[in-house]
């Protein structure tokens, strides 16, 4: 949206401030108050006040500082007024500040490292003590600043259900003693893994929707926004960069993934001129940076595979031998039959149909992916390549049959990400 008139420019800047500052304001307040509900209430009031004040007086030079100071004042006011909201905050926290003007207390805190408060918020929202779907909802609400309604729409649950889930999560965080801080070094790897998994779940939720509803596709943008934020906050973490690269490279194919009538288009048939070259080169650059850390991981392997696709001139001229090796490395690190399906296709492209069928055989025999359409599609593809058109047709038929079972497929996409289309 272009910023035309002053009024629109004001609104746009407010929206931008909202996106950029919401997590920081909530994080700062949550850390100081120890309660996400009180932080959310105060932040919401501050953003409402900003909408009115900035439309009248223009956007201040430091919108984030303005919002944090205002939110802090609102929190102190709410405490002075008493009532249910004040009761959730430890009286000691706000009790000490009653004697002093709010802004005196807020100013020094703002000058501190703002990034740290947002980080603490991310780690609290993605704490392994919370259920996975709760982590996703909390992160979208408090770090990314989506509304409860937007999140409910994206995950196709009633708004009241999601709101209730968030209420319970906020209570658990407060009462169980989950802190809004960066975990100590010895726990950082485990906790960062949980954060990355949440971001990737958000992305896959959007990606799995294919050409579906706009609100779900927006989840990809949200995940990339979160991924960029994480990569800024952890510039030295190779897997965090790997995750961002992977999402950028997947997203680069967004326009080609869905046909005009809304059906998914497999990689082999995609119109590569529709791929977003800027996203490809950004993804490749982020991945190259990650690889210089010499700390390999599943996201970097997947990003490397996506990068080979992204830079290939055609499906046939893709470096399939390299992709097969990367799938092999990924399978050793994080064994999964879904990875094996993709490796079988890559091996088939590199070394011929029979070699690919040999990789696929154990997956077919295990039977755990019987309902997974892409398994049978891969089977059909490899049979045809190996010169068995009759048997290939049977496999394609099973693929079409299983395609009707989109729930299984969607669930697998959510869990394992998408490799092959």
């Amino acid at each position: 949206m272009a910023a035309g008139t002053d009024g629109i420019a004001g609104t746009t800047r407010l929206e931008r401030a909202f996106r950029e500052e919401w997590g920081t304001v909530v994080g700062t307040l949550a850390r100081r108050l120890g309660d996400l509900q009180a932080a959310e209430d105060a932040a919401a009031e501050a953003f409402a006040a900003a909408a009115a004040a900035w439309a009248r007086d223009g956007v201040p030079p430091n919108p984030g500082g303005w919002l944090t100071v205002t939110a802090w004042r609102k929190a102190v006011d709410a405490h002075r007024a008493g009532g249910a909201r004040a009761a959730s905050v430890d009286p000691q926290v706000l009790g000490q500040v009653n004697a002093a003007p709010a802004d005196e207390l807020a100013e020094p805190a703002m000058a501190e490292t703002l990034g740290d408060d947002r980080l603490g918020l991310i780690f609290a929202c993605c704490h392994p003590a919370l259920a996975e779907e709760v982590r996703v909802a909390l992160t979208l609400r408090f770090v990314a600043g989506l509304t409860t309604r937007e999140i409910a729409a994206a995950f196709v649950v009633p708004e009241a259900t999601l709101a209730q889930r968030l209420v319970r999560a906020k209570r658990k965080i407060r009462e169980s003693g989950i802190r809004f801080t960066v975990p100590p070094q010895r726990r950082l790897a485990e906790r960062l893994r949980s954060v990355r998994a949440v971001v990737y779940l958000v992305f896959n939720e959007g990606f799995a929707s294919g050409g579906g509803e706009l609100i779900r596709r927006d989840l990809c943008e949200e995940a990339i926004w979160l991924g960029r934020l994480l990569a800024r906050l952890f510039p030295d973490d190779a897997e965090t960069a790997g995750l961002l690269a992977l999402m950028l490279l997947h997203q680069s194919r967004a326009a080609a993934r869905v046909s005009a009538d809304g059906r998914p288009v497999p990689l082999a048939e995609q119109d590569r001129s529709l791929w977003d070259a800027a996203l490809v080169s950004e993804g490749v650059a982020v991945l190259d940076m990650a690889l210089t850390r010499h700390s390999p991981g599943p996201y970097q392997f997947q990003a490397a595979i996506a990068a080979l696709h992204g830079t290939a001139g055609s499906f046939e001229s893709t470096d399939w031998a390299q992709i097969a090796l990367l799938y092999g490395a990924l399978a050793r690190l994080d064994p999964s039959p879904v990875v094996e399906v993709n490796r079988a296709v890559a091996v088939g492209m590199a070394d011929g149909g029979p070699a690919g069928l040999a990789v696929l055989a154990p997956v077919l025999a295990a039977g755990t992916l019987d309902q997974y359409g892409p398994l049978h599609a891969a089977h059909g593809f490899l049979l045809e390549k190996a010169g068995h058109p009759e048997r290939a047709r049977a496999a394609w038929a099973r693929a079409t049959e299983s395609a009707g079972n989109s729930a299984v497929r969607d669930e697998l996409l959510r869990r394992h990400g998408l490799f092959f289309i």
Partner: protein
Amino acid sequence: MKYALLIYSQTTAEEYAGFVAAARQAAGNAGPVEGPWLDYTRAAREAGVLVGAEQLTHSETATSVRVGNGDRVITDGPFMETKEHLLGFYLVDVDDLDAALDWAHRMPARPGQTVEVRAALSGLPWQRALTE
């Protein structure tokens, strides 16, 4: 913050009686007493986090009292019949959930046992009577 680390196990009453007898016998032996739970309890005490700990009799021996209107109903057995039995607990005082989870993780519990971590509430009026 205080946390209860509640140790649940599927151990049957018979198995449990065997474990307890063996543990008592070890404790009665001459010479230095060893054992993972002894080490764990010492470590918690030395770290200054241990408030209390008890090992309970098997839930098969529980007696439940249901409070009614002025009367009471006494029944043989636990409040809820489940396969998992609460067999003991530690009460620790640590900074946050992460620290409590670490102490739960450090327990020498056997595979199949589960440690439930529950934060204690604070700032309630009745709690004054604990220290009066």
